[in-house]
């Protein structure tokens, strides 16, 4: 048998069912589980927890390696175009870039003046 409800009632029915069941199950679990508790340190396959916790946050070198890995193609293009040993190559890349920056600066100053 199919019963058609409106979406809000359906949400209400499912959420209520979920919560009632969860409350009863949690209460039942607390009644049956053992009261005897033994607290342990983290299982790290035989490693000492102190040594392991030192490397929990990434250091500088792995982040640098990650960044160079992600930007590998971009860095390759830059290296091949700038890092050739000729200053002309450096200028030929930088001058258009500088021109764009100058144009952006001029445009920004004109717009800001208008404001």
């Amino acid at each position: 048998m199919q019963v058609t409800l409106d979406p809000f009632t359906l949400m209400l029915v499912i959420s209520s069912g979920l919560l009632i069941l969860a409350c009863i199950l949690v209460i039942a679990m607390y009644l049956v589980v053992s009261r005897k508790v033994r607290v342990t340190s983290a299982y790290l396959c035989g490693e000492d927890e102190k040594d392991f916790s030192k490397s929990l946050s990434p250091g500088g070198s792995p982040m640098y390696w990650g960044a160079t890995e992600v930007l590998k193609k971009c860095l390759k293009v830059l290296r091949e175009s700038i890092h050739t040993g000729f200053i002309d190559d450096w200028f030929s890349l930088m001058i258009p870039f500088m021109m764009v920056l100058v144009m952006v600066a001029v445009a920004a100053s004109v717009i800001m003046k208008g404001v």
Partner: protein
Amino acid sequence: MSNPLLIIFEVFVFPGFLFLCLLALVSQWFKRKIIARMQNRMGPTYVGPIGLAQPFADALKLFFVKELVVNRGILWAVALFVATLGICAISASTLLLPIAPVQLVSPYDVFVLIYVLLYAIFAFILIGLMSSNPFSAMGSSRYMAMIAIAEPALALSLVASALVYYNILPLSIGVTLAVSPPSLYDAIVTIFVGISLFIILLAKGMLKPYDIPEAETEIAGGFAAELSGPLLGMVMLLHDAEISFLTLLYTFLVLKGPYPFTLADPAGWVVVFAKYFFILFMASAIVASVGRLRIEQALRHLLRYSLALSIIAFVIALTFRYLA
């Protein structure tokens, strides 16, 4: 609305919590047996006839341990509540399945289902992140990475399927699951949804080749590394219940449940369970045949073969909807 007591019975007993737990444990036995046979092992044999009661014995052993072993960092009570909430969410969402004596449907109920299924995901993520163990955190982060692709793919697949029967009730997954026989338009959408959903079943169920979040030999069990006793039992039950629910969903959504019979006919129920165990057999065969993928390989797989197919199914369903 229907009798509230009947709704409570459905959530608690059938097809809710008790039925789902029973199905999950029997499915676990079936999966273990098939995988063992394919790997030239016996599988569970000791408890009950042909080892059928082994998952029940394992669960009971975990729930009734004499001493709780708790990791120093984990908030044990909160973790247990979160895992319980996950199982209850899956149990409550069975009200939308056609096997419920009173199936609840509504317009746009597909979004209700997508929302309710998120509880289980948050349970796995939170339990892993709660622990002070870096292996658990790593398992959770891997799970989150996979879910970031698998969940949108699942949502798109469900919405695409629900779009097919928009004219009966707008975006109702309950109606979509109950409709049979399928139309030609449904069959076209279902081909894409079927492939995508099967991959989602493996990924969300953390079955090989997508068992990266709990990779035992690599990160010591991942998010479950610090779990033991009732908490481990609850998480295992949640894991199996999620697999069972997704398999049931697949049975009705892709293989059209009891078709060519109906659920009013006992033969229809036989067909539903035959299809259910067939899907489980296929999943187990894949688990036994393939190795574990690396995380980036798994993400690429999910993008190409699950999310892409879900998007195609969604676009086809949307096109048909506007052409109709």
